[in-house]
């Protein structure tokens, strides 16, 4: 029985990290109407940047600060070079981001190399939790994720830029008519989306290792959260990510995990068909 508690807790912790990454995916979809296939690679770039910061400065804590900033910059750059030119053909965004994903993976392989590396967590202690030795770092990681998510929602609701972002998401035409610089909002949004994925990378790197293909596997999970939460529904995304990891954590202790994984994919299809706006209806839309 203890194990179930441990797994449930771990599910929430892991879910919060996923939520952070998925939130980036969700705002990019919600505002720019872009399905970002390269989002997993944004995460991966975050892990690589964290590794680089650690190698050059020897200070892990610096990565928490620097990497999101670099990520934001990269996001602006990519938005300018790739996303803005296809704004009128958002239909093709999947294809463009697919190309972007190839480029990001291959650039990392060309510079950083193909061998995986481990990043040692800045906190090494463990504590006995419901019968298993649990890493303190994970709890810290969850705290960082919560903090970042709160900062983001605070930004969205309390600042002018955030209000503008919500306005653009609600109705871009009216927002533009009201004098909101939609173009700049799109830029910032993409930057924030990248920054959040990159921060997710820093937070998760000590758990998942650093590898140029590290984004491939994280992507479906983020999509699950975004879809079950409702495409573009930010609060829903966070809730769904935590819920999914929590439920999967518990299910894993009873049944064959691959069946659990397939089960959650089937659940996701059902959500898409029956409730395309997610299971949390009426939250924000």
């Amino acid at each position, binding site marked *: 029985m203890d194990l179930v508690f441990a797994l449930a807790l771990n599910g929430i912790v892991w879910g919060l990290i996923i939520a952070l990454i998925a939130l980036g995916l969700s705002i990019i979809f919600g505002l720019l109407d872009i399905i970002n296939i390269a989002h997993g690679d944004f995460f991966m770039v975050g892990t690589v940047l964290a590794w680089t910061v650690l190698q050059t400065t020897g200070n892990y804590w610096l990565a928490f600060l620097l990497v999101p900033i670099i990520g934001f910059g990269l996001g602006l750059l990519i938005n300018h070079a790739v996303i803005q030119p296809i704004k009128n053909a958002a239909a093709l965004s999947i294809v463009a981001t697919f190309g972007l994903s190839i480029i990001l993976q291959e650039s990392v392989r060309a510079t950083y190399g193909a061998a995986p590396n481990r990043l040692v967590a800045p906190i090494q202690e463990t504590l006995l939790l419901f019968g298993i030795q649990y890493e303190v770092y994970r709890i810290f990681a969850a705290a960082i994720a919560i903090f970042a998510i709160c900062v983001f929602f605070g930004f969205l609701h309390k600042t002018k830029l955030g209000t503008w972002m919500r306005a653009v998401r609600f109705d871009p035409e009216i927002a533009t008519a009201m004098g909101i610089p939609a173009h700049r909002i799109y830029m910032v949004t993409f930057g924030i989306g990248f920054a959040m994925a990159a921060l997710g990378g820093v937070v998760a790197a000590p758990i998942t290792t650093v590898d140029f293909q590290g984004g491939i596997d994280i992507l479906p999970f983020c*999509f699950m959260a975004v879809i079950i939460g409702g495409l573009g529904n930010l609060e829903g995304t966070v809730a769904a990510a935590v819920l999914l990891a929590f439920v999967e954590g518990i299910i894993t202790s009873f049944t064959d995990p691959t069946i659990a994984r397939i089960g959650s994919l089937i659940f996701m299809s059902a959500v898409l*068909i029956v409730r395309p706006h997610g299971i949390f209806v009426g939250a924000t839309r």
Partner: protein
Amino acid sequence: MRVTDTYKFGSWLLVLFTLTAPWVLPLLVDSFWVDIYSEILIWSLLAASVNLLLGYVGLLSFGQALFFGFGMYGVAIGVVKFDLGFWSAFIFGISLATGMAAIAGSLAVRLTWHYFAIITVVFSLIFYFTALSWKPITGGDDGLPFTIPPIISFGDYKLTMTNANFQYFFIVTIVGACYWLMYRVINSPLGRAFVTVRENDARAALIGLNVYLIRLTAFIFAGFIAGVAGALFALFGRYASASYMFYHVSGEAVVWAIIGGVGTLFGPIVGTGLMIVLREELSSVWDHYLLLVGVAVILTVIFAPRGIGGAFKALAEKIARQQFSRKESGP
């Protein structure tokens, strides 16, 4: 030259090349290119199935690899587990893919656009994971190699795909039949209905078209084409593997279709051929040639969203218009 003439000329050139390739290619370059060309033809069917959906009914499927995989596994499992002959295995594979397309389609085409793209990925992921872990049947990620049964055997005389020329023409015949079928369907009332739905689904329903049924028909047809591609590729490679069902394979097919030009019949062949040859040539030159592939994809989307086929069409139309106006202004 009128637009249609330019088209006809291009198509005839393609057909002529295809029919003489086994003799022309070894003379010009190398016999290896005959096999590459067969492979391009097969993969172009996968791109064509994407094109059918995106170019003709306006649905972006990111999961066509699922039906490719079903066609492929149908053949491999048919041969390995059920001891089927060549044709029965081939038909089994295609039926499996088409059947799956009917099931997946009946759910997927309720959705459109982004939602549709995502659900097709999800469907292919479900079966990708299943195939990977179901080792006794699928061989898992190691895949399922098999020995190809003879196509026809009269006593000692056996005709198999191990004969290179025969294999080539077998592939050409099947792929050709698929393109002929697509050509017929696109120019049929049904094909017009596809385009109508692509253009404006709300209006299409208001003039009495059953949009759901039309989309479903297109989806099943595309699944059938992808299934044929998969079955052919299994026969060509004597191998089936779950890795062909991954969404990256679907993604590549989308890229090929878009680079070739969606909404044109032969666009997928052009796109697939170009990308495969490009990869083949670049890979021996530069280790990180994938960077160029990625850049090429993005540049196409930005500067030629209608692809090579679309650009060609526009050019042909421009030439035709110029000649037309010249004729008008002439004495």
